[in-house]
């Protein structure tokens, strides 16, 4: 078994009963590892905590959503955005219909295989930090459209942060999902600036030239 903690519940032949002898050992984290993570977390929280918490608070309360609306869930999205189940009171008011200006990609409705390159393109065009909410069962797992045309969940294409099931989900469910996402954003580690390294792009040897070489040659 891998020593990393598994992320998905694994179905064992004996069943997923916790008292079952064969299962118990694999699901227990080593005690030292958790303490070490706690220890590091404590110091980092002391020094970087206030900044991260403030940024987290700011980011979670001012989400600019990109509603990638395709299907029926769009109607419930309209209801969430309208006056009765107001999403503006959570800060996520204004839909930004450009991925460059948005940080929350709400995948509302079924994703088709024909639509999947477009979803990937929109997700790639968004700048970090970005979060993804899968709105409805079709975006979460494909819904009951298990056929030749439907992608079985948007998380096969883009990583998803929060899943809001329902067909379509009631607006209260959506707001609950938004709240869970906000808690997640608050708990993440936010930095004011990130020292990013340039991506390593491999150049073939024939194209590698020095600056002078590039100046002198054509």
């Amino acid at each position: 078994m891998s020593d990393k903690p598994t992320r998905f519940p694994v179905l064992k032949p004996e069943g997923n009963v916790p008292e079952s002898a064969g299962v118990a050992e694999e699901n227990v984290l080593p005690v030292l590892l958790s303490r070490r993570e706690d220890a590091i977390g404590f110091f980092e929280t002391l020094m970087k905590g206030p900044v991260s918490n403030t940024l987290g608070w700011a980011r979670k309360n001012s989400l600019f959503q990109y509603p990638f609306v395709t299907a029926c869930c769009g109607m419930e999205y309209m209801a969430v955005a309208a006056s009765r189940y107001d999403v503006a009171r959570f800060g996520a008011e204004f839909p930004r219909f450009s991925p460059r200006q948005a940080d929350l990609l709400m995948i509302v409705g079924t994703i088709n295989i024909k639509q999947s390159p477009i979803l990937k393109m929109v997700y790639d065009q968004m700048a970090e930090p970005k979060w993804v909410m899968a709105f409805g069962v079709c975006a979460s797992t494909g819904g009951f459209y298990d056929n030749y045309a439907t992608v079985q969940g948007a998380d096969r294409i883009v990583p998803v942060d929060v899943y809001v099931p329902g067909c379509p989900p009631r607006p209260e469910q959506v707001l609950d999902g938004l709240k869970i996402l906000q808690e997640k954003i608050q708990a993440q580690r936010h930095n004011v600036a990130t020292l990013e390294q340039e991506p390593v792009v491999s150049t073939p040897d024939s194209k590698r030239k020095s600056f002078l070489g590039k100046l002198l040659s054509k």
Partner: protein
Amino acid sequence: MAQALIDLLKEKLPDAIVSSHTHCGDEVVVVKREQLVDVIKLLRDEPAADLKLLAQIACVDLLTFATELTGGGSIASQEAPAYLKASQGPREPRYQVAYNLASVKKKHRLRIRVELRSDDCKVPTITSLYPTADWWERYCWDMMGIEFSGHPNLQRLLMYPEFVGHPLRKDYPIQRRQPLVHEHDFPDLVRGPGPGPGGAGVPMSQTHVGRKNVDPNTYE
């Protein structure tokens, strides 16, 4: 009410008609493929008929008409046993194209049907008569592979150009997906026992399947 239309056709173009009948309040006329355009032109232009609204062009694949048995999604489709399927030859004519025509003023309707063999599924186009037939014929071509000769732009309408096959044909399996972008698979997500893909007849002890060296924490 639409019996008058059938009589009109019998009077004007008797050799185009293969058969006609009424079922559940719908009048249906089966016509020969070669004279389809003449028949529909007559029905559109004749003042007594005035069938100016082309409601739909539907296509049916009769491949498993006799062998698809009962059973719905709850217990998974039951196919007929192999000996039954073997005893019946391939169903010909395999395809039927149905033109549902209606009249807005006279308020009567008629269905024109054309039957096609599987090795010869070509029909003349009626885009010259109804501009709306453009998309309906593209839909039939996309979903079932029926060629409409003379169509100005016979391309796929609903599926993407990279798609291979015609999905609504009865021999196209419903779950055969042809992905366009790289899709992350979740190998340890099992669907459970029972008939159908993902668990068909697999005993519970074998449902923990998956590629052992794939890390579910990464998106590779």
